[in-house]
């Protein structure tokens, strides 16, 4: 076994990254996203329907967290020594663990951590977490991506 893992830098694991700048969740953005994922439930578009469920404003669809997590993946791909080239990256797995849904009006920050890099054939599987918290510092959702990074010959 060689240590070559699709040339992905193994030192990314455990590296400190700065939190992302605050992302303010807008009502129209939630509506736009809801329409894009064929959401039909009024809690995503009608503030009164969301309030009836106890939320301050429209509730974002569950996968909206990806919009905030994406800021952390940009950080990862932007590391000069990451060895990860966007054209060789495939999204292999995605997971979200929620404390609560994202709601319009939330101001969210995301903290990236790379939790694992393992080789699989000539590829590397890179697992990263984005821990998303609100303005009060409370946990909202942790988004986990597994990226499959190819060896670099395509």
């Amino acid at each position, binding site marked *: 076994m060689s240590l070559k893992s699709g040339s992905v830098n193994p030192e990314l694991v455990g590296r400190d990254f700065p939190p992302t700048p605050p992302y303010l969740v807008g009502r129209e953005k939630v509506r736009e996203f809801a329409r*894009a*994922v*064929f959401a039909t439930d009024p809690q995503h578009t009608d503030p009164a329907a969301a309030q009836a469920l106890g939320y301050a404003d429209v509730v974002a669809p569950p*996968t909206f967290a990806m919009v905030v997590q*994406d800021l952390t993946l940009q950080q990862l791909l932007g590391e000069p020594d990451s060895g990860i080239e966007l054209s060789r990256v*495939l999204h292999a*797995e*995605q997971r979200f663990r929620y404390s609560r849904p994202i709601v319009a009006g939330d101001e969210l920050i995301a903290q990236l951590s790379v939790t694992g890099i393992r080789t699989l054939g000539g590829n590397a599987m890179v697992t990263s977490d984005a821990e998303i918290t609100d303005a009060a510092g409370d946990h909202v959702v942790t988004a986990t991506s597994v990226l499959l990074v190819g060896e670099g010959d395509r």
Partner: protein
Amino acid sequence: MSASTGSATGSTGSATGALAVGDVVAERTVQLTRESLVRYAGASGDFNPIHYRDDVAAAVGLPGVLAHGMLTMGLSVETLVPWLGDTGRIVEYGVRFTRPVVVDPETGAEVTIVAKVGAVEEGVARIDLTVSHGGTTVLGKAQVRIRVS
């Protein structure tokens, strides 16, 4: 406008009623078009050109323009929400992206979602999503864990 047919079947009443393993709680078929992909690109900020440019998709060896995996993941869980009632009951949602959804420029692509109770434990139920396109499943281990009271 892309059509979406079907809805929560409500075969078990509501998400707060008794759940039995194997119950189908919601299902629908979504017709994706190239417009759907452009709309999702704008809404999500994912402007990877393999999701709207045939020349780029061909250049990287793909069989055609693909739907964003996150679009498939997103529309799949939304199948469940009208039945669920409150998105806040979702504690976890995960998928593996196992097969691409090729979206034809003229005919688009049909994605079918069936949501079935996979397990019921104390306080939490696991809903398994079978998401298919052209007769094959496109997501693996697509599971939603929800709070049950």
